[in-house]
C-alpha cells in the first residue's frame, strides 16, 4: 500500500511514470486513507510529502501500515514496483555513462577551456555515482530503514502510554527544502538549455534532465536523513525535559512554591522526587533505544553521506573556481553561468548546512542528558546509585555522527569543508595563472614556476 497523495511527488513531474501506474497508486491511496484511523497522528503524518517522494522513486520500500504504531514489510506487487523503478534508474545511468564515454554528449561541453569541460564531465560522473550509491544502499538497507521507522514509532507509543504526551516534531523545514531543491534544479536546467546556442539533440536533453533529477533526489535523501536526525533530537530533548524536572534547581522551585502558595496549579510544578526512580528508569530505557536508533541511522546512511559530501565538496570547489574565472575574465561575463554557479553553490551549501546542523543538534541533545542528570542532587543512596550508574555508562559512550568513520559530522564540519575548499581554490587559481603566464610569453618566464609550485607544496603541508 502506498499512503499519501502522489500528486506531491508529481509537482516537478520529474519521474516519468505510466498513467496506469499513477491511477493504481491513487486508488491505493484512497484505500489507505480509509483504512488508517484518522485520529492517530504519528510523526509519519508530518513527513508525508518526503516519504511519498522517496517511495515513488524507489528509495524507500512501499511499506504497509498495519496499525498506527506499526509498519509492515511491503507487498509483493509493491516490491516489484520498487525493483522496476530501480531497473529504470540503472538503465538510465548506464545510458548516460555510455553517452558520456562515447562522446554522444559533446554538445554539452561547449566551453573553450579544456579544464572546464573536464570539470563538468567529472561533475556529471560524480553525480551519477552519488545517485547510484544512494539507490543501491537504499535498496540494500530498505529493511533497516523500515526498522528505524518502526522503532521510532514504538518509542513514541511508549512515551504516549507513560506520559500521555505527544511529541511535537517541527519538521516543517522538510517541505521548504524540497520545494527549494526542485525550484533550483528546474532553474539550473532552464539556464543550461538556454546557454547552448545550437539546437539541442535528444541525448543532451536527457543528460541534462537526468543530471538534475539525480541531483534533486540525492539532495532529497539528504533532507530525509536530516529529518531522521531531527526526529531523534526532538525525542532526546523530550527525555531531557523529563529528567530536567528532577534537577536541584527545579526541585528548589517546588519547595518554594509549596511553602508559599500551596494551591498553585500542579501542572507547572516539577514532579515530586518520589517518582524519580520510575521516571528515570523509563527515560534511561528510552534513551538507550534512541541511542541504538541513532547508531543505526548513522550506519545505514553513512556511505551515502560520504559520497554526497565528496560530491558536493567537489562541486562547490569547481563552482567557486568557475565563479572566480567568470568574474576575473572581463571580456564576456555570461550572466547565465553566474546564475548557475550561484544556484549550485547555494543549494549545495544549504544541504551541507542542514545536514551538519541536524546531526550536531542530535548529538548535542544526546550528550545533554548526562549533563542534566548530573544536576540531580539527592541525599538518598538509592537515587545516587541510579544517577551514578547512568553517568558511569555515559563516560565511554561515543556520541558522534560520523561519515562512514572518516570524519565527524557536526557544525565544525562545515567550517572544515570550507577551509579545504579555500585551499584547493587557491591552488587552482595558482595553476590557472601559471598556464596563462606560459601562454602569454613562452620564453623568459620560467622563473615564475618554481616559487608558485613551492608555495603550493608548502601550503599543502601546512594545511594538512
Amino acid at each position: 500500500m502506498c499512503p499519501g497523495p502522489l500528486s506531491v511527488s508529481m509537482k516537478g513531474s520529474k519521474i516519468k511514470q505510466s498513467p496506469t501506474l499513477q491511477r493504481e497508486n491513487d486508488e491505493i491511496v484512497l484505500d489507505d486513507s480509509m483504512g488508517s484511523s484518522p485520529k492517530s497522528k504519528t510523526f509519519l503524518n508530518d513527513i508525508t510529502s518526503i516519504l511519498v517522494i522517496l517511495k515513488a522513486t524507489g528509495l524507500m520500500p512501499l511499506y504497509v501500515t498495519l496499525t498506527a504504531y506499526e509498519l509492515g514489510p511491503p507487498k509483493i506487487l509493491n516490491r516489484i514496483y520498487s525493483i522496476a523503478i530501480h531497473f529504470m534508474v540503472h538503465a538510465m545511468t548506464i545510458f548516460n555513462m555510455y553517452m558520456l564515454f562515447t562522446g554522444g554528449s559533446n554538445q554539452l561541453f561547449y566551453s573553450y577551456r579544456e579544464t572546464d569541460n573536464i570539470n563538468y564531465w567529472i561533475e556529471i560522473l560524480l553525480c551519477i555515482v552519488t545517485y547510484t550509491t544512494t539507490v543501491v544502499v537504499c535498496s540494500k538497507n530498505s529493511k533497516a530503514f523500515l526498522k528505524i521507522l518502526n522503532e521510532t514509532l514504538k518509542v513514541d507509543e511508549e512515551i504516549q502510554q507513560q506520559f500521555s504526551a505527544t511529541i511535537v516534531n517541527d519538521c516543517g523545514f522538510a517541505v521548504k527544502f524540497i520545494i527549494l531543491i526542485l525550484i533550483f534544479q528546474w532553474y539550473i536546467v532552464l539556464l543550461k538549455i538556454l546557454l547552448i546556442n545550437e539546437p539541442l539533440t535528444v541525448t543532451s536533453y536527457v543528460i541534462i534532465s537526468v543530471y538534475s533529477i539525480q541531483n534533486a533526489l540525492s539532495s532529497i535523501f539528504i533532507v530525509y536523513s536530516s529529518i531522521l536526525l531531527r526526529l531523534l533530537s526532538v525525542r532526546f530533548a523530550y527525555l531531557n525535559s523529563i529528567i530536567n524536572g528532577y534537577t536541584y534547581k527545579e526541585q528548589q522551585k517546588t519547595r518554594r512554591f509549596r511553602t508559599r502558595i500551596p494551591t498553585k496549579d500542579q501542572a507547572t510544578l516539577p514532579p515530586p522526587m518520589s517518582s524519580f526512580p520510575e521516571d528515570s528508569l523509563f527515560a534511561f530505557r528510552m534513551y538507550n533505544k534512541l541511542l541504538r536508533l541513532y547508531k543505526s541511522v548513522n550506519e545505514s546512511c553513512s556511505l551515502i553521506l560520504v559520497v554526497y559530501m565528496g560530491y558536493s565538496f567537489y562541486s562547490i570547489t569547481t563552482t567557486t573556481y568557475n565563479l572566480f574565472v567568470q568574474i576575473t575574465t572581463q571580456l564576456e561575463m555570461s550572466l547565465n553561468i553566474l546564475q548557475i554557479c550561484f544556484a549550485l553553490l547555494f543549494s549545495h551549501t544549504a544541504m551541507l548546512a542542514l545536514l551538519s546542523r541536524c546531526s550536531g543538534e542530535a548529538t548535542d541533545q544526546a550528550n545533554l542528558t548526562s549533563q542534566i542528570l548530573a544536576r540531580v542532587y539527592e541525599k538518598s543512596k538509592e537515587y545516587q546509585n541510579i544517577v551514578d550508574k547512568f553517568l558511569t555508562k555515559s563516560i565511554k559512550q561515543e556520541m558522534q555522527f560520523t561519515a562512514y568513520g572518516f570524519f565527524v559530522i557536526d557544525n565544525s564540519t562545515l567550517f572544515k569543508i570550507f577551509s579545504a575548499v579555500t585551499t584547493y581554490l587557491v591552488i587552482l587559481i595558482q595553476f590557472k595563472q601559471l598556464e596563462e603566464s606560459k601562454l602569454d610569453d613562452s620564453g623568459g618566464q620560467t622563473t615564475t614556476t618554481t616559487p608558485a609550485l613551492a608555495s603550493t607544496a608548502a601550503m599543502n603541508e601546512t594545511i594538512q
Partner: protein
Amino acid sequence: MSQQQTVQTILLHFSELFLLCKVMGIYPQNWKVFQRYHDLKKSNVGVLFVIFVMLAIVVLYNLLIFSFSEEDSTLKASQSTLTFVIGIFLTYIGLIMMITDQLSAIRNQKHLGEIYDRIRKVDERLYRIGCVVNNSVLELRIRIMIALTFVCEITIMIAAYIVLLDHTKWNSLLWIFSCLPTLYNSLDKIWFSTTLYALQQRFAVINRALEDMVQVHERYKAMMAHRKRSGSNNMVKNKNVINDILFDLGHEESLKLNYLQNELRGSGLAGKLGKNRVKPVITVANSMNNFNQFQSIKKQPTKSAINIHYESELSNVSRVEDKLNDFCQLHDEICEIGKKLNELWSYSILVLMAYGFLIFTAQLYFLYCATQDQPIPSLFLSAKNALITATFLLYTAGKCVYIIYLSWRTSLESKHTGICLHKCGVVADDNNLYEIINHLSLKLLNHSVDFTACGFFSLDMETLYGVAGGITSYLIILIQFNLAAQQAKDAASSHGTNDPSQISNGADNSSEDVNDYSTALTTLMTSTASTIITASSSALN
C-alpha cells in the same frame, strides 16, 4: 537583606566601563537604573541611540574611505572586479566587526542583566559557605585595560597622522574615524574578558576552598601523629599491628594503601553480604582515624589551646557532604553561566578572530610591500612605518590572544576542581567520604565549559597555534607571489630591449605589477570569503 548588603553584584566595579560604553553608544541599557541599583535594564531610547551612533560611524567611515580612495585611483583603475570587491571587504571588516558588536549588544541587552544576577546569587552562596571573592581586582583590571586600549589607539592614530599624512588637507582629519571601530570593539571585549575573569575567579575560589580543607586536614593529621608518637604507646599496643606498619610508611602511601584495602575488601564483602552489614575489615582499617579522633577529643583539655585550630572539617562526613554538594552545585552554575556568556558573545568573537587573522596577515604583507617601495592601499598606510605597525600588531594580537588565553585558563580552572575534590578524598581516607566524592566527581565530569566561536573552533591554545601557523604560511605564500612578480618584471624589462615582441609587455609593466599585487590580495581574501560564507550559512539556518 543583610546578605545582600555584604555581597554586592560585580557590576558595581563595571560602572566606569559602562559609562564609557553608554556614552559611546555600544551598550543600550538604562543608565539611571544602573547608577541606582547596579542592574542592567532594557532601554528603548538606548537602542535608538546605539543605532544612531552606528549609522553615524558607518557614514563617517565611508566618507573617510571615499576621501582616501582618490589616492588609490591608479590602483583601482587597473584592478579586476573581484579584487576590487575583495579589497572593499578587507577595508570594511573593521566596520563589520563594530556592527556585529553593537547588534549583539542590542540582542543581548536582556540576557546580560540575567547573567550578572546569576553571578550575584553564586556569590551569595559562596559567602554563606564562607568563601569571599575579591571583586576589587576586577576594577583594577578594567582600569588597566581601558588605559592600555586608549594609549594604543591614540598612539597609533596620532603617530600615523603626524608621520604619514598630509596636514594641509582638511580631509586627512577624517583619519580619526579609522580608529573608532577597533576602539569600540576593544571596549566590548574588555567587558567580556572581565566577566570571564570573574568566572575564573569563582572557579579558583572553589578550588582554593577545597585545597584549604585538604591542608587543614593534613595539619590536623600531622598534629595527631606527632602527639601519638610523643605520647604513650600503651593504647596502640592493644590495636592491630598493621596500623603501626602503615604509619611508618609515611602519609601518602599509607593513605593509599588504606583506601585500597578498604575498597578491595569492602567491595568484595559488599557483593556478598550486602550494604548495611558492618564490615569487620573496614572497622579495623579505619581504626586509626577513629582512634585519632577519639584521642584528640580526650586530650584536648589537657593540652594547650592551640589544638582547637586543628579540627578538620573532613573528619565530619555528614557536614562535609553538604559542603561538597554545595561546591558541586556552584561549579555547575558557574559552568552554565560561562556557557551562556560564550553564547552571547559567540558571533562577535568569531568576527574578531576573523578580523585578527586577516588584518594581521594583511598588515605584515603590506609592511613587506612598503619596504620594497611598492604601492599599498591607503587604509593600511600605517604599514609604511615599522614602529606604528609593531604597535598596531601588538594591540590587535594582544586583544585576540588575551581572550583565547582567558577562555583557556577558565576551562582549565573548571577542570581543576575535580582534582581538588579527589585530594580531599585521598587525605580524609574515609569510606563514606570516598563514596560521596566518587558520586560528585562523576557529576563534575559532566559539567563542561568549553569556549567556542559559534561551535566552529574552540578557543584554546591549540587554535592559537593553528592561527599562528596559518598566518605564517599565508604570509610566505603572499611574499613568494610578490617575489615572483618582481622577478617577472625584471626579466621582462631585460628581454624587452632585445625582443620586439616583449616591448609591449614591458610597457605594460605597471599594470602587470598591479595585477600581481591584486592576485596576492585575492589569495589572501579567498580564505576570508569562505569564513563569511560559513558564518552566513549557519545564520541562515
